[in-house]
């Protein structure tokens, strides 16, 4: 190989560089964009007002699917909250534990939307109670 040794060295370095760049890019692990899990069916949500009363002091918990949407001590005054549910409706699980163990008590739950009542149900228990409140955005289903 003829020519200036410096020029030859530069050409070899350039060759290695040109080959190296794609090799380097291939071997680099790139961080992938996070996988976005889309829900099976995209649901529209509506807001509903819940009013919860109890015949005796107790702790009330309301779950929508597996999410807790309300958890409070309820005493003489009714508790109120606003929650979001799918517009196709939801089955809310109401659980309550009386402050006094074994006491016979009742919890009344009312759900409304835009000023109209959707459902009104009472659950009874001794010390503890559990029930399902079926809420539909358009009509009373329970």
């Amino acid at each position, binding site marked *: 190989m003829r020519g200036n040794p410096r020029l030859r060295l530069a050409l070899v370095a350039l060759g290695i560089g040109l080959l190296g760049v794609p090799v380097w890019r291939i071997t680099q692990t790139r961080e992938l964009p996070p996988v976005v899990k889309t*829900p099976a*069916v995209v649901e529209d949500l509506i807001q509903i007002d819940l009013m919860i009363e109890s015949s005796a002091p107790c702790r009330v918990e309301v779950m929508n*699917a597996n999410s807790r949407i309300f958890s409070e001590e309820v005493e003489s005054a009714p508790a109120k909250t606003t929650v979001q549910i799918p517009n196709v409706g939801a089955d809310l699980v109401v659980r309550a534990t009386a402050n006094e163990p074994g006491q016979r008590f009742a919890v009344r739950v009312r759900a409304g939307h835009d000023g109209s009542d959707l459902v009104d149900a009472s659950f009874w228990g001794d010390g503890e109670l*559990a*029930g399902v409140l079926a809420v539909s955005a358009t009509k009373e289903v329970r």
Partner: protein
Amino acid sequence: MKHLTLLAIFWAWGVCSALAQGPGQGSDKLVVASLSTVLSDFARIVGGDRVEVVEILKPGDDPHLFEPGPVDVKTISQSQIVLANGLGFEAYLEKLKAGVGQGPIFLVPGEAVRPLFLDNDHDHHDHDHSHADGVDPHWWHSISNAKIAVREIREALIKVDPAGAPAYQNNAKAYLAALDELEKECKLEVARLPRSHRVLVTSHDALGYFANDYGFTILPVQGISTSDEPSSQKIKDLIGKIKSLGVKAIFAENIENPKVLEELTRETGAKIGGVLYADGLGEGKAATYAEMVRHNVKTIVGALE
């Protein structure tokens, strides 16, 4: 030696007479022959010690393919009450009644429930009128219907054996209370599923009453009977529906070949959610009605959650 010979003769006589005897003979128990594993369970619970339940159809048998043989007909004719699901579930029932004659009382709780009718696409609808054509006969998947059946069995037992009335009433009362609790337990369990997830893809169209009670949509692979074969167009349509609804799991049954379901899982990415007991009780974990209901509900909710 003489004693041994006599002993052998008595033993042989005992074995022969035991084989010749029909159900309940030699005891004062009321004999109930059952063509349904679910009704066998109810009859055992309500009847208690006063009743001998003879299972003509056994857990795990496919009732859609079952027909009683000559031995079964003889057993049935020697019983006092015969239990059948009705609503066309036992296609041989009228023939059997004619063959058995006037002997036993036939109790068919399906005739006392409010039936669900199927349209051409096998979707379920409520109707007030009753006939077996196009009716879903799997009524026991509604616990409310199970309670009707328990009351019917109680009344039939009292009619045939009035002396046992207090026992039958007490047993039925306790069991009806247990069914109330079971119903509540199922409601709480199903409430864990958002309504949009309540889509059931099952081997055959047997869970309509369950779907009606708990707000599920059913996409069956087969028709109402396990002998119905799905067409390739139906499978193609089903794959489209499963994909568009984003169904997470599809379910097999305890008594059939889940080959088609496996094909569906391959095509759609849904998983096999587990085995359901659709046509009656199984052995082991679904050996009673309450265990069967719990198993089905937990399997469905666990897979679709």
